[in-house]
C-alpha cells in the first residue's frame, strides 16, 4: 500500500504525490463539499446583505439583486463582444490545445536519439517551465505585433489570442515533461520486443509506446488543465476583457464597498464550480490508472 501511495504521478510537477487518497479523506470529499461551498458563499452574501441593510439608506438595491444583475455580464461578457467567463474557458481550451500539440513535439525532442535535438529541447523545456507565467505573458503581449502582414494581407492579432499563446508556452513545457516521463515509464521490454519484431524506432514509438502512454498521461494532463484555467485571470492584467476585468468594471460602476466581498466571492465561486469537478475526476482517474505494485 505504501508503494502505491508514494507513487508520484508521471510528471515531476504532479503537485502532490496522489491528490487526496486514504480512507477518511475520501469520506470528506463527497459532493457535500460543493454544497458546503455554496453554503459558504450564501453566508457571506447574506452577512453582507444584513450589513448593507444596517448601513445603507433606502434607494439601494439589495446585494443579491445586484449580484444577479451583473452575473450575465461577468459570465458572457458585454453584448456583441467576446468576453467574460466564457472567454476564460475558450482561452483555456485553446491554450491547452496549442500547449498539448507543441508539448508533444517538444517531449519527443526530449527523448530523441540525436544529442543536439535533445539539448535544445531540454533548454526550451527548462526555460518555459521555470519562468513565471505572468512574465511570459507580458513577454508575448508586448513583443508581438498587434497585426501581421502576409502577402499584403494584414491579419489582426487580438489581445486575447496573444494572451492564449502566452499561456500555452508554460503548458507546452510541462506537457513535454509529462510525455518524457510517460515514455520513460514504459518497460524496456516493450522497446526490445518491438525491435525483435523489426519495427523501426518511429513505428515503435507511434504504434506501441505512445498508445500505452496515453492512459498514464491523462491524469497529469488534466491537472495541468485545471492549473491553466486558474491562471487565465492573469490575462486581465494585460488588458483582456475576461471575467476578472468585468468584475472590477462592475464594482467600479456600482461604487459600493459592501459589494466588494460578495462580488469577488462570486467570481471565486465560478472558478471553483468549474475546477473542483475536474480535480475530483482527475483523482478518480489517477486511482483507476495507478500502477499497482
Amino acid at each position, binding site marked *: 500500500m505504501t508503494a502505491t501511495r508514494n507513487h508520484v504521478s508521471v510528471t515531476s510537477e504532479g*503537485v*502532490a504525490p496522489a*491528490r*487526496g*487518497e486514504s480512507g477518511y479523506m475520501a469520506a470528506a470529499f463527497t459532493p457535500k*463539499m460543493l454544497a458546503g*461551498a455554496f453554503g*459558504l458563499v450564501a453566508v457571506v452574501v447574506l452577512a453582507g446583505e444584513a450589513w448593507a441593510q444596517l448601513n445603507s439608506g433606502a434607494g439601494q438595491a439589495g446585494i443579491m439583486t445586484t449580484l444577479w444583475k451583473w452575473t450575465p455580464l461577468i459570465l458572457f461578457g458585454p453584448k456583441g463582444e467576446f468576453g467574460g467567463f466564457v472567454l476564460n474557458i475558450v482561452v483555456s481550451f485553446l491554450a491547452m490545445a496549442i500547449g498539448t500539440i507543441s508539448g508533444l513535439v517538444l517531449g519527443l525532442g526530449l527523448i530523441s536519439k540525436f544529442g543536439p535535438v535533445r539539448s535544445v529541447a531540454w533548454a526550451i523545456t527548462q526555460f518555459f517551465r521555470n519562468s513565471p507565467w505572468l512574465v511570459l505573458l507580458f513577454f508575448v503581449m508586448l513583443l508581438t505585433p498587434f497585426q501581421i502582414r502576409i502577402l499584403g494581407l494584414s491579419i489582426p492579432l487580438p489581445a486575447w489570442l496573444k494572451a492564449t499563446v502566452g499561456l500555452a508556452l508554460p503548458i507546452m513545457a510541462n506537457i513535454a515533461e509529462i510525455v518524457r516521463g510517460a515514455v520513460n515509464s514504459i518497460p524496456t521490454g516493450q522497446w526490445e520486443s518491438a525491435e525483435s519484431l523489426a519495427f523501426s524506432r518511429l513505428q515503435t514509438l507511434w504504434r506501441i509506446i505512445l498508445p500505452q502512454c496515453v492512459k498514464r498521461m491523462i491524469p497529469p494532463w488534466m491537472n495541468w488543465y485545471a492549473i491553466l484555467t486558474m*491562471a487565465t485571470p*492573469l490575462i486581465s492584467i494585460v488588458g483582456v476583457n475576461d471575467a476578472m476585468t468585468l468584475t472590477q468594471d462592475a464594482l467600479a460602476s456600482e461604487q459600493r464597498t459592501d459589494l466588494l466581498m460578495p462580488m469577488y466571492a462570486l467570481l471565486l465561486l465560478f472558478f471553483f464550480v468549474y475546477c473542483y469537478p475536474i480535480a475530483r475526476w482527475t483523482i478518480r482517474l489517477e486511482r483507476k490508472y495507478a500502477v499497482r505494485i
Partner: protein
Amino acid sequence: MEGLWDFLRSLHDAYGINLVHFYDTFERGRMLRGMWTSIKLAAVCIVLSVLIGILGAWLQGSRFKVLKAVVQGYIQFFRNTPPLVQMYFFYFALGPQMPRVVNEYGISQPMLGSFEWAVISLSFFAGAFNIEIFRSGVEAVQRSTVEAAESLGFNRWQIYRYVVLPLAVRVCLPALNNNLVNLIKTTTQAYAIAVPETLFVASQIWSDRINVFEMMVTLLTFYLLLVGIFVWLMTRLERSLRVPGFGQ
C-alpha cells in the same frame, strides 16, 4: 565596475541595446530594490506556507471531524480557485474592512499594506498545497514506527514532532520543492496589487525608458537564477537529510 557600466553605455550608443537599468545609478537602485522585495516576499511566503503545511497536516490527523472538515474545506477552496482572484479578494475585499492606523507622519493608512496582503494570500495559497504534500509524507511513515513511539510514552504532538515529521519531510521534499518553486514564480502576481517587486519595477522602467525587450530578458534571467539557486539549495538539503536505507 565603472568600466562595465561604460561598456554597457557604449552598447547603447553603438547597437541600441538599452541596458539603462544597469548603468544608470537611479534605475539600478530601483531594480535592485525590486529584486530584494521579490526575494523577501518569496522567503517570507516560503516559511509561512511551510508552517501552514506542517500545522495543517497535523490538524488533519486530529480526531475532531469538524476540524478536519475545516482544513479540508480550506485546502479545496484554495486549490481550486485562481490565485490572482484570491489575492484580489484579500487586498480589495478584505483590505478595506481592516482598521486603519495613523503612521508617523500623522496620516491615516490601512493596517496592512499591499506587501503584507501579498504575503498573506500567497502563503495561504501555497500552504493549501503544502498540507496535502505533508499529509502524503505523514501517511508514508510506517504504522509500526508510530506504535513504537506510542509504546515509549510519547504523546500525540511529540510523536508528530519527533518521529513522524522528520521522516515525512524527507519523503515529501521533492514534491515540496516543486510547490515552493511554483510559489516563487507566483510571487510575480503581486504586481497586480502594486507590490514593488521585480516585475512591477521592471514595468515601470520599461515604460520610462522604452527598453521592453532588454528588460524582459533581464527579468527572465533573474527568475531563472532565483529558481535555479533555490532548487540547488533544496537539492543540497535533500542530500544532507538523506537517511541511509531509503531509496537507491
